[in-house]
């Protein structure tokens, strides 16, 4: 693979891994809002 291929792949992987890590860190630390618990069935 040429340097252009490596560069492009490294860039794409970095962006995706960074985005994934940041999003999941934020999701895990997101304050729980609303009425959680999942037991509110309709019937």
């Amino acid at each position, binding site marked *: *693979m040429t340097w*252009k291929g490596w560069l492009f792949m490294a860039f794409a*992987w970095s962006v995706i891994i960074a985005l994934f890590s940041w999003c999941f860190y*934020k999701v895990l630390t997101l304050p729980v809002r609303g009425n*959680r618990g999942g037991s509110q069935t*309709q019937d």
Partner: protein
Amino acid sequence: MAQQTGRNAGPRRERWASNIGLVLAMAGNAVGLGNFLRFPVRAARFGGGAFMIPYFVSFLLMGIPLMWVEWAIGRFGGRFGHGSTPGMFHRMWKHPLAKYIGVLGLFAPTVIMIYYSYIESWTLAYALRAFLGRLPHPPTAEAFGGNIEEYLKPFSDFFGGYAGPSAGDAFTNFSRGGGTWRWWLCIAVFLVCMGLNVWVLARGVARGIELLAKVAMPLLFLFAFVLVARVLTLGHPVSPAHSPLQGIAYVWEPQFYLDKCSYCGNTLVPKDGGLECPKEPEKHPVTDHQKTFVLTDGTTWLEAAGQIFFTLSLGMGAIPTYASYLGPDEDVVLSGLATSSANELAEVVLGGSIAIPSAAAFFGLNLTKRIAATYGTFGLGFIVLPALFRMMPFGDFLAGIWFLLLFFAAFTSSVAMAQPAMAFFQDELGWKRETAAVVLGLFFFLSTQLVIFFSGVLDEMDFWAGSFTPVVFSMVELFVFLWIFGSDRAWEEIHRGAAFEVPRIFHDIGKYFTTFFLAVVLIFWFKERITGLLTASPTVWMARAFMAVLLLVLLGAIHYAFEVRRAKV
């Protein structure tokens, strides 16, 4: 019976139990067979790194805005007790027709589930047989004698014995598999799959779907990491000239100019030091091939946009349904982005590093190009990959986790495809959850018989429900949410309880660019596919008739549900 909440007009409904569970369930919906099989083949065939440019443009300007729109529509509908798009559209657009247009968000996932559950059963059956060491074991020497077709033949026959030559006539072809499949085993595995789906659906959103996602998604990623690690450390297993890095290069090396067949537009593949058309090598001579610049090629853009649709499960009705189980002030911006990023990690980083690189390591790059062009998605996953694992130490175990990975990917997607109909039965018709799950399970089991016994039905359903309807329905969603409901109200709705603010530029991108982009995709789609639609086999017409009847039944059910609701009011 339903109770009223204090703040909202809708009945009290189920909710997700945790943020991470919701995101994993949404990611489970999005991550499917397409991430590990369809993506690497598409990327490699349409310019490698150059394909990734329209792919990422489509992701950024179409995928993410649509993802936020679908999440916001779903949470908005859920506030009024609607978990399926007919009710959501009814709330967003005060027009008598609105609820009927929403039928597309019920039709697409229901039809997809009919054939998807069957494919899901293949993955489970293959996983079981791999772990038991019951996949074909031809002498690996044949693979290196130059005749790859001969080496792949037992795997091809094995697959043909289950799925038939066109993935449609499984149970009529048992003898083709050399007696390796028994019909009752196929039925039993399919029943187990359907039973698992019904069980998860009957347990509900938090105790069923969310729990499944919390178990299946980490395992899926773990299996994928194990396989990627194994493939990238293969070294030079056959010849110093072949390595997995060549496969990585094939997926990622930007090829701005592609040699295309001037007859059918397919990318030409290597053949005896030259090139040939992978579709019709005899009828389409290579002397007529042309160089095409990837970034101005409509087909490449169409493929990239189509892959984004397919991989993020957009326009299929499942995302709004899942989002309807959010609280009215719970974030959708971060969660939607987290779902998209998890899907991209599974697809671009992991999916692109398993199938093609392992094929390149054993078969070499030229043969891998031919395989990518001729075997297709199912052939790569169910024929080529098991054959490759056979040549590695602990091959049965690796094949087992490969198919288990595919099974988890399919399972988490199939419950998502069934949930819009579940929500419709529960929210609009007032059915109990368990009743709805059992009725749906029976319906899917019986309908899938069409896919099993009649060749061509699967492909036809996939075209209309898996390719065509999502693009149309996404257009409708954008139009209703951004143009009728109003882009400022939509912007406000998306930002209600948001963990961060979306750059304002996305307001205009969503309203103008994404709508325009989708319209262009749709026009190209029609142009490419319209020819040949009328000249179809009787079974294809039967599939179309079935889908038309299903659409009418769903429209009737919507009419009935809303008439009953109106009478009660």
